[in-house]
């Protein structure tokens, strides 16, 4: 309920309400982008871009709908695009690159091997186990058949459990 009030306040120009919305959603948006891309600077750009998109579309946003899935759809799709592009082209991104250092978020956790997955598999694993969406919700977010989501989840988890 608080979120609806924040969105209404933001639509009416309240920066305080918009900041509450931002603070509530930034950590998970950024973390999801970082897990999918494996790149802190790209994650920052992607999560920031998602919030800028939110600003641009604020007036048209339906307050009855939850904000998070809308935001996460943008974040995860852009993160997949970014990761695919970098892989295909051996590409230098013009986000502020952070040299490869051990990621404290990943070290020692079950997600530590997520970088070994394809971007598509990373995305469903992150949506399911970090952002805690159901497979049905993930299918809707990524415009995928539910069976595809389930198989990607299964394969992703199998791969992460494999011995290195």
């Amino acid at each position, binding site marked *: 309920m608080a979120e609806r009030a924040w969105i209404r306040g933001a639509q009416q120009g309240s920066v305080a309400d918009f900041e509450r919305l931002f603070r509530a959603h930034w950590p998970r948006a950024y973390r999801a982008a970082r897990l999918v891309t494996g790149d802190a600077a790209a994650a920052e750009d992607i999560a920031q871009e998602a919030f800028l998109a939110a*600003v641009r579309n604020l007036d048209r946003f339906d307050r009855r709908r939850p904000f998070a899935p809308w935001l996460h759809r943008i974040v995860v799709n852009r993160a997949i695009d970014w990761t695919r592009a970098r892989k295909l082209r051996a590409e230098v991104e013009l986000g502020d690159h952070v040299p490869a250092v051990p990621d404290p978020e990943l070290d020692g956790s079950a997600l530590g091997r997520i970088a070994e997955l394809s971007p598509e598999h990373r995305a469903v694993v992150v949506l399911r186990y970090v952002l805690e969406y159901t497979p049905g919700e993930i299918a809707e977010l990524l415009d995928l058949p539910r069976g595809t989501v389930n198989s990607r989840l299964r394969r992703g988890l199998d791969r992460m459990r494999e011995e290195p």
Partner: protein
Amino acid sequence: MSRGPSGPEERAWEVVRRAFDERAVAPRRSRRWLVAAAVASAAVVVAAVLSPPGRAVFHRVREAVGVEHADVALFSLPAPGRLLVVSENGGGVWLVQDNGFKRKLGTYTDAEWSPHGLYVVATRPNELVTLDPENGERWTLARRGASQPRWEGTMTDTRIAYLTPGAVRVVAGDGTGDRLLARAARVPPAWSPGRLHTLAYLTPGKTIVLQQVDTGRVLWRRAPGNAPRSLAWSSDGTMLAAAAPRRVVVLSGTGAVARVVSTLSGTITGAAFEPGTHRLALTIRRASGSEIKVVDVDHPGAARLLFAGPGTFRDIVWSPNGRWLLVDWPTANQWVFLHGARVHAVANIREEFHRRDDVVPSLRVAGRWCCR
């Protein structure tokens, strides 16, 4: 999650909040308000884009847009050489020497140095002109819509490439042998520094062609995938950067893709290799301002932020010795010279190249700082 001033959340919040503020007042804002907002936000925006630790080299930016403690006039250039400044839309061409002396060469629409900086090739509407800066014009050639002249060669054997509507043409440095080379898009051609009389140009079909202009032999063709707006060689001629708004494709001397540099949220507006290196300086326009980043093409993965500020950066040009990068910053009415951690700015640039008709000059300097 860091909440410190340099953390990603705080950086993002500053940018997003600024966008929110602009949206909130959008229905009643005026141009004057926009200017005031830009001024007020300058420090915030600069802080937001420069905060990654160890990445930014930056001087203090005062609340009025621009580098603080800028020289009030262009007393000198920080490196040896001479600069041609094209003032677009009828402002003419200026010559600036390293001791600060400057002189208007004439009402030309464009100009470039000869390969050793002894002469200048310029254009007027429907005319190609070569001139000696001390003694005036040497020869002219009437050609409809001549533009973007580029001159290369040895001390005794040179060629000038230039564009006419829909085509690229070539003429010898003494004005003889003018001929159509090929159909071409309206992107300035670029002579290969590594091979004599060998020109890269963009076809109307958006393919880059490298061609020896005397024999007509095509060395390679490459479609970079989207339409480049500029072509820039490294000084050793082994790399060619084709810059499009969203990405720069760096081709090797054989036309193979050596590297792709892209941006998610910005627009790439300029690219220039640092002389003697494979470090590529890029100008990037973002919603929050502009940035200069440097990518080492040989060691990919690190795009180093060199400078950033509110508004628009236009042309960049390296000094001939590769030590200084000149950035034209029209929003601040400044030229900014960057050298490692050093930033030297010159204010009142519009007044330096004042026009009699009081139109605000729009300046071009890319590729026009020549010769030690």
